[in-house]
């Protein structure tokens, strides 16, 4: 299974995502430059963390206009797996591929900390290999990770089982402790914690691997079905 890692100017977790896939998941990965108009033959794309275009104006607000995002939209519309982590989540929310928005942390400060979250659904290509309620230890590193949406959207997300992860330690003030959400078709997911930073024992946790393993197993199953 081939993963594409999008590189926006200012992405800085691109190498980390690449390393997690290539080294710790053991699958091929390649970088996709932000001005590409196609994604090539990848089976899934990752929008990594960082400060795309400096995150000037608003996190992810400029990245959504980059050429590669048209290709990502099409890929998503065709059912491709799109994972946004941290800044990647912010970009997907800005691009309207996911509902809601990420605003300044409740404490107004950047927070880098390992915290606990629970798997809220296993009905997704990103959590299928986890157990419902399973507790994961993953780091966060963001200044603007407080998830918000209007009440109706939040109710809808819950009714449709589209909350992927919830914080047990809600450090940024996210509404209803939401750490990760799915789109309606369940093939696009955004999360603020960094699964790629928890993929080998030396990183202090391997709990993030389950996200990538779920993507891998989902893809392998779909190949078999096809």
């Amino acid at each position, binding site marked *: 299974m081939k993963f594409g890692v999008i590189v926006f*100017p*200012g992405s*800085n977790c691109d190498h980390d995502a690449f390393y997690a896939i290539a080294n710790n998941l053991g699958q091929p990965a390649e970088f996709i430059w932000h001005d590409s108009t196609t994604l090539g033959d990848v089976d899934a794309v990752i929008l990594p963390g960082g*400060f795309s275009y400096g995150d000037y104006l608003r996190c992810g607000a400029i990245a959504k206009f980059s050429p590669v995002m048209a290709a990502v939209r099409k890929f998503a519309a065709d059912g491709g797996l799109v994972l946004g982590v941290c800044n990647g989540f912010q970009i997907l929310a800005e691009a309207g591929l996911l509902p809601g928005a990420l605003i300044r942390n409740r404490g107004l400060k*950047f927070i880098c900390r390992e915290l606990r979250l629970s798997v809220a659904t296993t009905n997704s290509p990103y959590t299928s290999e986890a157990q419902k309620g399973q507790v994961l230890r993953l780091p966060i590193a963001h200044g603007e990770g407080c998830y918000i949406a209007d009440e109706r959207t939040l109710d809808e997300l819950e009714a449709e089982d589209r909350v992927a992860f919830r914080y047990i330690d809600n450090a940024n003030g996210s509404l209803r402790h939401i750490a990760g959400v799915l789109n309606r078709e369940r093939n696009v997911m955004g999360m603020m914690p960094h699964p*790629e*930073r928890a993929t080998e024992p030396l990183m202090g946790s391997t709990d993030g691997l389950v996200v990538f393993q779920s993507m891998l197993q989902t893809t392998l199953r779909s190949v078999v079905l096809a």
Partner: protein
Amino acid sequence: MSAAFSPEVIAQHQLTPGEYQKVVDILGRQPTYTELGIFAVMWSEHCSYKSSRVHLKKLPTRGKLVVQGPGENAGIIDIGGGYVIAFKIESHNHPSFIEPLQGAATGVGGILRDIFTMGARPIAVMDSLRFGRLDDSVTGPRNRRILSGVVAGIAHYGNCFGVPTVGGECIFEPCYDGNPLVNVFALGVCRKEDVFYAKAAGVGNPVIYVGARTGRDGIHGASMASAEFTEESKQKRPNVQVGDPFMEKLLLEACIEAMKTGAIVGIQDMGAAGLTCSTCEMGSRGEVGIEIELDRVPQRETGMTPYEVMLSESQERMLLVADKGREDEVFRVFKKWGLEAAEIGIVTNDGKLRVRHHGEIVAEIPNRELADEAPLYNRPYTAPPEATREHVLSAGANVQSALPALLSAPDMCSKRWIWEQYDFQVRTNTLTIPEQTDAAIVRVKETGTSVAMSLDGNGRYTYLSPREGAQLAVAECCRNLSVVGALPVAATNCLNFGNPERPEIMAQLVEAIEGMSDACRFFDTPITGGNVSLYNETLGGGIYPTPVIGIVGLMKTAAPVTIPFKNAGRSVILLGGAGACDDVRFGSTQYAKEIEQQLWGLPPALDLDREKRVQEAIREIVAAGLAESAHDLSDGGLAVALAECCFGPDEIGAQIDLDSDLRPEMLAFHEGPSRILISTAHPKQVAGIAERHGVEAPVVGATIETGMEIRQRGNTLGSWDIAALRAAYEGALEAHVR
């Protein structure tokens, strides 16, 4: 050409009449106004080290792993496996006082460029910070604002750039009121054959400018950093540059990619003294001339004079020399990253820096004389200021109540409020969490080697004895590395002192350099570069002499030994023993500072030979996998170190009993060096190793499920609930900041 400048204009440029005469002698004529500015900035204390160079020569700079010592943008050490690390520390003290957020941010930006201009990708940053007291009724609010601004600035720049800020230190003293210290250390890695030098070569080769456009910001920043502060200093805010970490990130990626084309001959960042410094230094190192046309320099403001363009310290700019005929390969890379690049001149064979503006020559100066023949002063020095030697300790010392007081003191409390604002994990190489280990460790994925690093500097110690204080800093830094199992291999220093024109301040500088020099020689950690920051005085009040040392060590990549106790029922060993202390040597401690509220006497006594043996022993113990936890004793001594060992996730505690004649408060809180607390399931093997190194290693107690107790020959000195101690330790800084 032009007439002589008036004494006022010369004085404004901080040149002495003698220095001005030297300019005239070098040129064989009166300088132009642009030339005057160029000389002023290159011969400023900040750029020329004119007061310190004589003494800096005493520092050891060579070693078998040293690939590049002082004189380049950063020092370089061979780490094996075909890879090298580049590292250096720099100060940004004066700008951080004037505009804390941007001052600190551009400090980070400057040191990062020093690293990647050598071809190395930055993989770690640490910072050493000093502020005035946060709780002072008069200066407290300002000090809190400076602290918040500096931390936000470091976070803003490092987080966005994508380099982990993995550790550091932060101390508060009244002497840093109005003169905070912001010292930033950065470290990068690259393959040995990919190192680049800031050297121009090849007559006729194009000189290329890359990055941000030049504006009027930061003009005379280097000269500002070379003067004392006065009431007018606040008006110098326009002299502080504004940082753009996003631009720097693009510059990093573009430079590293452009270097791979093989078309770059030499490269240097534009830091202090901007275009002036980069052109003349590259020319001087390559023994060539450089001619530039200022009309071609990308500018963000109109109507800039040659003087302004040459002296601007606008950030995120690089100067490089490319192979003639291969410019397009370089331009293509910068275009890909959306960066402006312009050919602004050529390398010449006449050894001169020639600057044209609209075609006319506005400056023509021999590079070597400008860059390397700056005035050199052997300034007179007497003896460092004497502190009181005597102090009568208060009666009724109470170890029980002193410990929580010390743990919640600003110097010793958890700095979580600071380090959680830094992304310390990006690049997934950081093997440590701040405050969980004595040194930060960053792995090099390509080689299976890890680099441990630590910063240390104790102004109280150095004030009482500059020589011993500097030695203690080196010893502690090496000890921090040894505790995590790394072998110290090289160092960088940042010397923060007051006005060198005062003989007693100059004496502090000289003695500190000599002390550091001796210790670095002893531990075989040559100094490969660094920075001197003088004139750290505001309204006549000088700072404590504050030499900060950064040392790097090498180790095999493995899960690190951390500070907290892991299991109950383990033996607690005090490697190095209870140590010795007396009233005089107790005056520099945190206990003296917080409980007695005094500073007197001398710093703790250091026996270098014993220190080395303790370090050899702990490295062997750690390498053998015998230490379940390890933590060195430093600020706050034994009791504070023991408490920190109890702050693990399970709050495993300890009960210890010491056989010692020391007064209870001294036993608990003296800061005698060369001591390490270990918990182990294998006390006999640990004792065996210690004995072979001739080091005491008494088993002082055991870890227990809950609670912490210290006894002296059976008498309880204190017994504490760990959660309560931890609350004091964890919550203090945030409470102080509010």
